[in-house]
């Protein structure tokens, strides 16, 4: 449903704008269905059965699904990064980091540390629930959420400064026409990554709420934590590549 909503929504943005509202509608219906299931007490954290005998026998079917989803995300970000590099190699001018680039490297370096630290706390949360240590699990999960929110907040702060003070816009700007392609690629890459971090923050918020419910996640039943964790680490991996490509090269 989310993929369909995204597809229709983006098709609407590119072709006929009212169509994007259909995408928003599908998104709302999908989310409503999910929340309805949750309200009815469907347990998303249950251990699922492994796949049937065959190539992937012994692998949890939901974990396999998450990995296939992440593979689709690899293609998504590869297309965005590849297109940005293609535009860059053909651009007449490109600001050099630390010389004339408007990007704030020290601030983003701090943000990079924050995201790496959040990956560490996320894996600590999983370690905690695997050992049945609920206190460790809850604290680590809360720390991950707070670090994720901090990352997004710093990015919003950076966007605000770049857009209004440095005149770095995603489109041709009369104040800085030389930065048009640079701005487009910068916002496209970091914006889509930021949207993914927001998705992760929503997932982490859900986990944090459920972590405080009695017997929701237990030592035996916590696959939901692992799946959200996989997504969160993937978001970190994408940033590990984006940081040098966008800010340092």
């Amino acid at each position, binding site marked *: 449903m989310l993929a369909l909503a995204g597809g229709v929504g983006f098709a609407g943005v590119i072709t006929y704008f009212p169509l994007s509202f259909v995408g928003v509608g599908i998104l709302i219906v999908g989310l409503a269905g999910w929340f309805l299931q949750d309200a009815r007490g469907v347990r998303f954290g249950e251990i699922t059965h492994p796949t049937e005998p065959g*190539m992937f026998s012994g692998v949890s079917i939901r974990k396999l699904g998450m990995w296939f989803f992440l593979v689709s995300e690899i293609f998504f970000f590869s297309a965005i990064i590849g297109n940005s590099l293609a535009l860059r190699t053909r651009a007449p001018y490109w600001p050099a980091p630390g010389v004339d680039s408007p990007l704030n490297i020290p601030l983003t*370096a701090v943000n990079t540390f924050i995201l790496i630290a959040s990956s560490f706390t996320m894996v600590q949360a999983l370690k905690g629930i695997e050992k049945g240590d609920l206190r460790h699990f809850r604290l680590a999960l809360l720390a991950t959420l707070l670090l994720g929110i901090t990352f997004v907040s710093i990015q919003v702060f950076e966007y605000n400064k770049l857009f209004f003070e440095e005149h770095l816009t995603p489109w041709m700007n009369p104040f800085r026409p030389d930065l048009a392609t640079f701005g487009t690629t910068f916002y496209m890459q970091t914006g889509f990554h930021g949207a993914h971090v927001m998705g992760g923050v929503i997932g982490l918020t859900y986990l944090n709420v459920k972590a405080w419910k009695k017997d929701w996640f237990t030592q035996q039943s916590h696959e939901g934590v692992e799946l959200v964790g996989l997504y969160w680490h993937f978001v970190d991996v994408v940033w590990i590549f984006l940081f040098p490509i966008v800010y340092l090269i």
Partner: protein
Amino acid sequence: MATGTPAAEPLTGLAKVVEQVKKPYFAVFLVLAAVTVFEIQVPGFGAYGIPKTVQVTMLIATAAAKASLVVLYYMHLKYEPLVLRYVPLVPLGLVAILILALVV
């Protein structure tokens, strides 16, 4: 705090050391942080006569190393069945073709 299952006994002594060696989460975090500190210095290497091509190669190599650590240890791919390890590995060839086709 009740979970319905008793909490596992905390590991001590040799068992704790073995656990930390098998799943070195904190060591991986330290390496990731240290490599990031190195990466931030790379744009300044031009002042020492190191060509841009070398700098770019360094940054891509360090990023690939960091990503591998996260995928292997934090995403637990090192501990998964072999067939699952190929799932994210196989598309990387296609990704390389895509990037080269767009850039070159």
